[in-house]
């Protein structure tokens, strides 16, 4: 199992260094897209339901809701799962549509940095409310 998920053994040094595109670290990427798809499915339904019931609520009620440990933990899990899934997904889309190698590298880095930054900010926000 471990062997299947790690990559690098069959690559040229250049492709290992660049680490982009198809058949480079594909199987791990593919598997993680599916793992996060499953967690997104469960957590996403919980999230939609929560938004639905809180949409008209006052500030204090929403804050108390997020401060409850169960909700804080599920929200952090949803943030991690959805941001990770989005970065993986956007990477494939960018690899498919951006053909200029330089722009592609810049864009992939930009996407990852942006989503990592906002994801950390989200987790911090939840902790600030809950702790």
């Amino acid at each position, binding site marked *: 199992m471990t062997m299947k998920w790690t990559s690098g053994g069959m690559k040229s040094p250049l492709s290992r260094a660049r680490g982009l595109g198809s058949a480079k670290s594909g199987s791990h990427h593919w598997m993680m897209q*599916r793992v996060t*798809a*499953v967690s*997104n*499915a469960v957590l*996403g*339904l919980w999230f*939609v339901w929560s938004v*639905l*019931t809180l*949409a*008209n609520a006052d*500030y204090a009620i*929403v*804050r108390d809701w*997020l401060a409850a440990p169960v909700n804080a933990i599920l*929200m952090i899990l949803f*943030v991690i799962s*959805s*941001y990770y899934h*989005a970065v993986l*997904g*956007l990477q494939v*889309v960018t690899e498919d549509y951006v053909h200029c190698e330089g722009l592609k590298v810049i864009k992939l880095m930009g996407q990852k940095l942006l*989503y990592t930054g*906002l994801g950390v*900010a*989200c987790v*911090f*926000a*939840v902790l*600030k*409310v809950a702790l």
Partner: protein
Amino acid sequence: MSAPSGSTSGSSAADKAKRERPLSPHLQIYKPQITSVTSILHRATGVALALGLFVLGWGLIALASGEGSYAVFKDFWGSIFGMILLFGWSFAFFYHFCCGLRHLVMDTGRMMDIKGMYKAAYITYAGALVLTMGTWIVYFACSGY
């Protein structure tokens, strides 16, 4: 994209034959089919949801920042304009959700024949519609409309 060019000289019959050769499945000239439409919608909704994560971030940060910030967030997304956008995102979520489940089923090798593909696509569309409508019916029922 230009068509593959062969010899430029030749009779008009040869030209005609050349023109009528089947073209490669390029996006602009390829007839949309249920498989391709279902697939591209999964991608489009995935990208839309990825953009929606910025709204999630805005909401969580506003909630942590205080009552004033949260009021701005709530006023914007509670407006008609905001609700129309949220309606779109709810459909994007449920479409991507159903189509994602379809992906996971097909990853196991099931429903890979033509009949199965059609069935899976129709289940995806119906599921997305029912879940989206159900969500908004619950919302409006709870808000006392």
